[in-house]
């Protein structure tokens, strides 16, 4: 089972929930941080680093002598990484999404594969047995999905090799990076908070992820704050609330020290055990449906 922990609004508790779920998970697990613009799951899982690999994207490099300005590549490219002005084919590798289409359509072999560094993939082990996979975007790189795709590819290999489940700490928002992060999941766990901003973005996330037709469950963080609209929304949409994390000072203090919420007290340990049961139930309902 692959669980993606997503939210809409940032700062609602995705990483708090991901880290505690990972640490208390009862089966083999790979923990993945796909918030490549600012990965932070490692602050709580504290993995010992095993390797750091550079991740590159294949982008076109021009052999101008071979280019006959036929425009096949510029017409294909959806991202304006290639454009013809006057008698020049301009190649803008920083705009390339790495689809490889230009190499295929070029009739003269004028485009050769080059590479753009996207960032790094860090692999470590947490608590002796949990492999942790982290993507970290290169500073200055403007696109995160190409790096995320390569992290997801490694994630799938590791999970298959180990026969493991996966917990993905997704980036906030509902744009390409968030959609990319939840794509492979069997269950999406939405973490929200009952504040006006939290509720607003929770609705957006629900709207964005609904067309994927994946089962969704909800964690209400900072429960007791704000109002009841998130609860009413869940009820109206048939979204099960799998856990509530109360709005308590001890929780914030524990978090600020890098502690795992599931290890704060027995009540929290129980909350996360129930959360895992809830996720298993959502997953099974789909398999049997």
């Amino acid at each position: 089972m692959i669980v993606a922990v997503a939210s809409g609004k940032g700062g609602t508790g995705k990483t708090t929930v991901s880290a505690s779920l990972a640490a208390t998970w009862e089966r083999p697990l790979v923990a993945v941080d796909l918030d490549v613009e600012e990965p932070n799951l490692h602050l709580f899982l504290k993995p010992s680093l095993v390797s750091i690999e550079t991740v590159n994207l294949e982008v076109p490099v021009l052999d101008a002598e071979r280019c006959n300005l036929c425009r096949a590549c510029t017409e294909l490219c959806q991202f304006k990484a290639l454009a013809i002005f006057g008698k020049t084919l301009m190649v803008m590798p920083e705009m390339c999404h790495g689809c490889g289409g230009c190499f295929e359509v070029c009739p003269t072999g004028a485009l050769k594969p080059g590479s753009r560094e996207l960032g790094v993939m860090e692999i470590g082990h947490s608590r002796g047995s949990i492999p942790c996979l982290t993507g970290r975007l290169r500073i200055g790189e403007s696109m995160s999905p190409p790096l995320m795709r390569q992290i997801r590819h490694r994630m799938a290999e590791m999970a298959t090799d180990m026969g493991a489940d996966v917990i993905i700490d997704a980036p906030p928002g509902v744009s390409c990076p968030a959609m990319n992060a939840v794509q492979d999941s069997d269950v999406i766990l939405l973490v929200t908070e009952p504040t006006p901003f939290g509720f607003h973005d929770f609705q957006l996330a629900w709207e964005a992820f609904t067309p994927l037709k994946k089962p969704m469950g909800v964690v209400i963080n900072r429960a007791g704050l704000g109002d009841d609209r998130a609860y009413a929304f869940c009820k109206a949409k048939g979204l099960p609330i799998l856990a509530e994390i109360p709005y308590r000072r001890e929780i914030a203090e524990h978090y600020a020290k890098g502690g795992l919420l599931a290890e704060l007290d027995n009540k929290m340990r129980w909350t996360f055990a129930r959360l895992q049961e809830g996720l298993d139930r959502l997953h099974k309902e789909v398999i049997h449906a």
Partner: protein
Amino acid sequence: MPKIAVTSEGPTLQDAVDPRFGRAGGFIVVDTDTMATSYVDNGASQVMAQGAGIQAAENIVNAGAEILLTGFVGPKAFAALQAAGVKVGQNLENLSVGEAIERFKAGSVSFADAPNRESHS
């Protein structure tokens, strides 16, 4: 005399110069011999996730313009315009399109040899 493209917030000479090049509302293209104007909508570039400057440069080259009057041009669009042989007059925001053209005709627009905006990425 060449054709001039001016980034514009609307279709008439009284409209303001749009300070943005790539995401300009549109371009007023002026034939300096006849002073006939036409309007090229740039709406498709405005909604692009990336590459708006490149698209806008293609739009004005396709319209036959050899001179561009605008506010700010970024580095990729500037390189594209240079490759296409389009001269770029920058920093003409806060004028109407008509005023910018008058200023060009009076010879008081200098042409840039470098972009005046940093890359977005």
